[in-house]
């Protein structure tokens, strides 16, 4: 099944018992804070979108926060990350400020991409966030290219490549994974299976239910688990990161998650029942992390302080975005070409 002692892939049994060593409490609090920041930023972004302050597409990550936060927790700062257009969560997890993100959504010159990229194209190169990409599957070979560069230079970096289960049917996924496997690149392919490719459920888009099985044809390791517990995500992705870093072997990891909002702001998500959604919300990774912090004695006052800090950060980000200047025409040419150019 795999070269490296594949763990049992069977247990799709949902969240396990809430037991963690207390030494992880501060760490868990930090991860909870990141997840909450992502959620609150996105909730405010949705509000701003409704007010017409954000245009175009806005794909929310709400419900999936534990995937990006847990995965990035398993990285070093200069490791590379690359993802799809549903990129707000990863950008924050990788270290982008809420201000730079919100200003980008507002299309402002102070945004991470100076207002040229928008919601789908968040880049923070100093933090190793190499972008959100809008063509499904097209970024997967790019990620393999980043990992290729790391191997070429022996720089010890690992690349994490995120995509949805909807990307697994397009060629870019297969060519990217195939070449990464052939050339033994230090990369982890993370399929965020949120069960719907826009409005199409997995069973109507794929011939197998277990996305991680796609690894078999390429002879690489695989893993598959639920994202309910952010620490589980960190640990399991961490195993794949270690494999990439120490043995330069790729892994395909299917992380089972769920988005609580529609595909984008224009999607009322009528293809699924309210009952299904409510059932899934019981597995909210934020609620779970918060409950665990309380159960393990982190203390309500500290949690409140943390949450108030997030509110302040989000409010400041919205204010910053609102008050920031628009980019002007002078930015267009120099951002198209490096160096002088006259077509």
């Amino acid at each position, binding site marked *: 099944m795999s070269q490296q002692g594949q763990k049992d892939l069977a247990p799709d049994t949902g969240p396990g018992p809430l037991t963690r060593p207390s030494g992880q409490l501060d760490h868990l609090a930090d991860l909870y804070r990141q997840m909450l920041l992502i959620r609150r930023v996105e909730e405010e972004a949705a509000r701003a979108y409704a007010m017409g302050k954000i245009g175009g597409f806005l794909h929310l990550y709400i419900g999936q926060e534990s995937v990006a936060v847990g995965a990035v927790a398993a990285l070093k700062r200069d490791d*590379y990350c*690359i993802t799809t257009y549903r990129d707000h969560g990863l950008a924050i997890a990788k270290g982008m400020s809420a201000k730079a993100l919100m200003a980008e959504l507002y299309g402002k010159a102070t*945004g*991470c*991409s*100076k*207002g*040229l*990229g928008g919601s789908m*194209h968040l*880049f*923070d*190169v100093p933090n190793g966030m*190499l*972008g959100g*990409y*809008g*063509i499904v599957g*097209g*970024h*997967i*070979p*790019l*990620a*393999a*290219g*980043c*990992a*290729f*560069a*790391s191997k*070429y*230079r022996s720089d010890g970096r690992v690349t994490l490549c995120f995509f949805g289960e909807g990307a697994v049917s397009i*060629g*870019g996924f297969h*060519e*990217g994974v*195939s*070449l990464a496997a*052939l050339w033994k690149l230090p990369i982890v392919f993370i399929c965020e299976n949120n069960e719907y490719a826009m409005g199409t459920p997995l069973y109507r888009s794929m011939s197998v239910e277990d996305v991680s099985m796609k690894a078999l044809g390429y002879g690489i390791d695989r893993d598959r688990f639920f994202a309910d517990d952010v620490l589980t995500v960190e640990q399991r992705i961490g195993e794949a990161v270690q494999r990439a870093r120490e043995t330069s072997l790729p892994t395909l990891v299917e992380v089972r998650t769920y988005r609580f909002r529609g595909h984008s702001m224009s999607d009322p998500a009528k293809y699924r029942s309210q009952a299904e959604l409510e059932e899934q919300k019981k597995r909210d990774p934020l609620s779970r992390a918060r409950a665990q912090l309380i159960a393990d004695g982190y203390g309500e006052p500290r949690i409140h302080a943390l949450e108030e800090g997030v509110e302040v950060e989000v409010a400041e980000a919205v204010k910053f975005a609102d008050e920031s200047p628009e980019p002007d025409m002078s930015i267009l040419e*120099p*951002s*198209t*070409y*490096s*160096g002088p*150019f*006259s*077509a």
Partner: protein
Amino acid sequence: MARTVRYREALREAMVEEMERDESVFLMGEEVGHYQGAYKVSEGMLARFGERRVIDTPIAESGFAGIGVGAAMVGLRPIIEFMTWNFSAVAFDQILNNAAKVRQMSGGQLTCPIVFRGPNASARQVGSQHSHAMEHFYATVPGVKVVAPAFPADAKGLLKAAIRDDNPVLVMESETLYSVKGEIPDDLDVVPIGQAQLVREGTDCSIVGYSRMTHVALEAAEALAREGISCEVVDLRSLRPLDEDTIVRSVRKTHRCVVVHEGWPYGGVGAEVADRVQRLAFDWLDAPILRVTTLDVPMPYNANLEQLCMPQPTRVVEAVRRVVRRGRAEA
């Protein structure tokens, strides 16, 4: 001093020299290594640089083009060889959406110093799927540069410039040019991207071409000289950016313009040249600008039909005669 070198050797010299001066440059593509290149452009390079830097790929243009773009984003300088530009069609997304856009989408945080190269346009009787002139598609895209050298010296100098450029550069070669010989000055370094050149001076009509069509234009000009029509031939070398100054200077002198290129007549580089000339040299023109292109059909296999579809010197001669006669009383 100068040496006589074939076009394919000139390209190889460019790659070898740049790989020797810069460790971050590598060559990747189908059959570039062990096979020594489908057209032997990379012959000997595997032995010289090893498998780390001369990398054979499976048949997966979208995959390895994307890997090149990703590697370029983080600072390497890949040379991605397409066995032919026809096959780049399955990698179009990587060039259009990633290579050409990543600098803009990142607000200038990332650059993409990558070269895509390979033979373009018709070869001989390779049929409709292997005869595309792909430069017309790519030259419309802001964020990339496109060059199409006609001579070995320009092939070498432009490829060297492309490798050193911090932007994606698409180098359009030609299977039918690989064995063409030409002189290369010993002190040749880079040929700057974006500069056309006059390869023949004349007074009656400017013929604008690039790649193999520059040779067709020169052949036509020679034939026309025998009937007393003096043609100037402008070799574009670079399609994006386009050196409109050199084109316009020539047309203002000759008052007539014929553009010749492979590829279909709808839109394309010829239409772009015609637009610039009519805008920038309107008062100097004595005749409409004519284009000589591949006929508006998929390329046929039949040898005779293929030749009839492609721009030939005779068709260029006929086009020049039409624009020259138009200015005369008997026309």
